């Protein structure tokens, strides 16, 4: 399945926006945390600065988000993991409220109660979770709802290759297969489960082969490429919409940053991240668009400026929004 012109341009634009978002976050996140606070023995104060808490960035993994989400509409569900900004942006979660949530502000998606690992946006049916492997069962539920409501909606579970060793993953694949649910499981193999290499944690070279254990197609996308992800995801999503059941896709992708910001990355060969950036999927797609005459340098520049303006506005919104009233901590435990 080849992308349309619109989809190619959309993927390119979204990847640029995601990258801009993550690079901006990487800088903003460090505010107040560095230079090192040596007092009290702290070199890096994770709770300090305007964006507190852990921060997991997805720069480098954009192709997975855009290649899948290009096929989705508002009514399709996406359940992400702890590293989910790219999915949220590709799914259309509003950038302002998403960023405000990471600043812990009252204008955030969860009014400051979730933070960056727990983003919920009901109108675009996006959610994510800080628990490794938890997305797969919930995507089954969303897919089950689609079937019960007689809709052609699909649900996507995104997760990392480390999550494919969780019981939740295996249970969810079996459930999706026996119930023939319109769900697509998308595994991002960025080679590291936090710091542990896949070869140390996983019995198979590719999780795609695990689809066979549950009677579903397993597809390996070997290149961190938006067009290749688009093709695999398009086939899987179309299959799901036709009522033919689930698919497991694994994409070999690249994580440019550490597991979390501040991760010393001692487990990683020196210079690996820089080397990965040499074959950047955004640069590659941009070259293709230019070669095909879909975009010229001026348009490219314009697109980047606009993406950067959107990101800048979102960060300003997050920064300038008010904090919630401390009393609001007691609200929303229950829906009524």
């Amino acid at each position: 399945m080849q992308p349309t012109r619109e989809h190619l341009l959309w993927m390119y634009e979204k990847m640029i926006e995601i990258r801009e978002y993550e690079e901006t976050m990487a800088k903003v996140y460090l505010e107040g945390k560095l230079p090192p606070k040596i007092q009290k023995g702290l070199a890096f104060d994770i709770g300090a600065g305007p964006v507190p808490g852990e921060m997991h960035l997805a720069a480098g993994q954009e192709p997975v988000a855009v290649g899948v989400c290009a096929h989705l509409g508002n009514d399709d569900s996406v359940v992400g993991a702890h590293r989910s900004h790219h999915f949220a942006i590709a799914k259309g979660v509003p950038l302002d409220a998403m960023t405000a949530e990471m600043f812990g502000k009252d204008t955030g998606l969860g009014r400051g109660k979730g933070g960056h690992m727990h983003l919920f946006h009901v109108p675009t049916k996006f959610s994510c979770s800080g628990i490794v492997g938890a997305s797969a069962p919930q995507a089954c539920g969303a897919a089950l709802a689609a079937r019960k409501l007689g809709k052609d909606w699909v649900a996507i579970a995104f997760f990392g290759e480390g999550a494919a060793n969780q019981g939740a993953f295996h249970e969810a694949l079996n459930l999706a297969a026996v119930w023939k649910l319109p769900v697509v499981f998308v595994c991002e193999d960025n080679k590291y489960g936090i710091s542990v290499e896949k070869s140390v944690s996983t019995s198979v070279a590719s999780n795609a082969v695990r689809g066979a254990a549950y009677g579903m197609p397993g597809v390996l996308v070997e290149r961190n490429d938006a067009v290749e992800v688009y093709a695999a995801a398009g086939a899987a999503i179309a299959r799901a919409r036709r009522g033919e059941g689930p698919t497991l896709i694994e994409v070999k992708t690249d994580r440019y940053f550490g597991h979390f910001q501040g991760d010393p990355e001692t487990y990683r060969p020196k210079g690996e991240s820089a080397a990965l950036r040499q074959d950047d999927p955004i640069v590659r797609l941009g070259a293709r668009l230019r070669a095909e005459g879909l975009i010229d340098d001026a348009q490219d520049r314009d697109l980047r400026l606009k993406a950067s303006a959107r990101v800048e506005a979102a960060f300003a919104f997050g920064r300038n929004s008010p904090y919630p009233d401390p009393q609001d901590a007691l609200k929303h435990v229950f829906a009524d």
Partner: protein
Amino acid sequence: MQNNTKSGVRTLTMAQAIAEAIGQEMERDSSVFVMGEDIGKYGGIFSATTGLLDRFGPERIMETPISETAFMGAAVGAAAEGLRPIAELMFVDFFGVCFDQIYNHMAKNSYMSGGALKLPVVITTGIGGGYNDAAQHSQCLYASFAHMPGLKVVVPSNAYDAKGLMVQAIRDDNPVVFCYHKGIMGLSWMSYFEGSTNAVPEEAYAIPFGESRIVREGRDVTIVTLSQMVQKAAIAAEQLAQEGISVEVLDLRTIVPLDRAGVLASVAKTGRVLIADEDYLSFGLSGEIAALVAEHLDTIQLRAPVKRLAVPDVPIPFSRPLEQAVIPQVDAIADAVRALVRAEPIHQLQQGAQA
């Protein structure tokens, strides 16, 4: 297990009442469906879904694999899409295998969304011992759910309440853990307390959460209790009445929300309180009630120190005499009440301590 007609009033077992409530709500609201292990042809291992498969078919009464994480997570996902799943997990003891989906997702996602997301899920599960199934099939654990913010916890003691509370649970927009004690379901293969089978109206009715019920009025001692222990407390109270001790039995019915005002009003009236609980003693429901009373001693005049009866912090043993010893029985409840009544007035104790 059949409908009885006693003096013109229809009575149901608790299992029948629960199945009836689910069936009526499924008819009323097409977004309600049930999934779980053996809930279809078998009708639920404790008969809470008997007859529903024939009425509603396998798309709404869905047998699941023995994959609790998968179907509890699916309940979260389906509820987020606006459906109202009822997910049965057979024995409460099995929640360990899927607790992540319960306490990290079902209980918290609404809060972490700032109230934007609603998760109207009902989890049903069998609790309690007394039939020699040992430590992995006999726990109550309701306090463990109650300890985690975001879950409502319902623990009925009889068929009438079970139906009304189940209707309320299904209509609630929040996750509700509905715990039924196997020993009061009215199962033909398990001895049970007849008081749990009672008159149940045919039409659907909802009992609001957080309203305890005075099972029996009394002047001398309040027994705060729930679930099967209500039936035991009622028998003990009847025995004690013969001895001239007037016992008030308070059935909590739900522990989240907890009817704190109801407990305090009853204890203020009698001045003595026994908490009878089939969950573990430490860090649990009995401690919560005791603390509640302690926090209100500025307005409540106690005539004796608070007394607690619960499982003494041991796993439930298999052997009959051992199990009978650790789960509070009628005699233990009666003895505890007698001790409370015999205890010296609390102000005398305090004066003695000062002397």
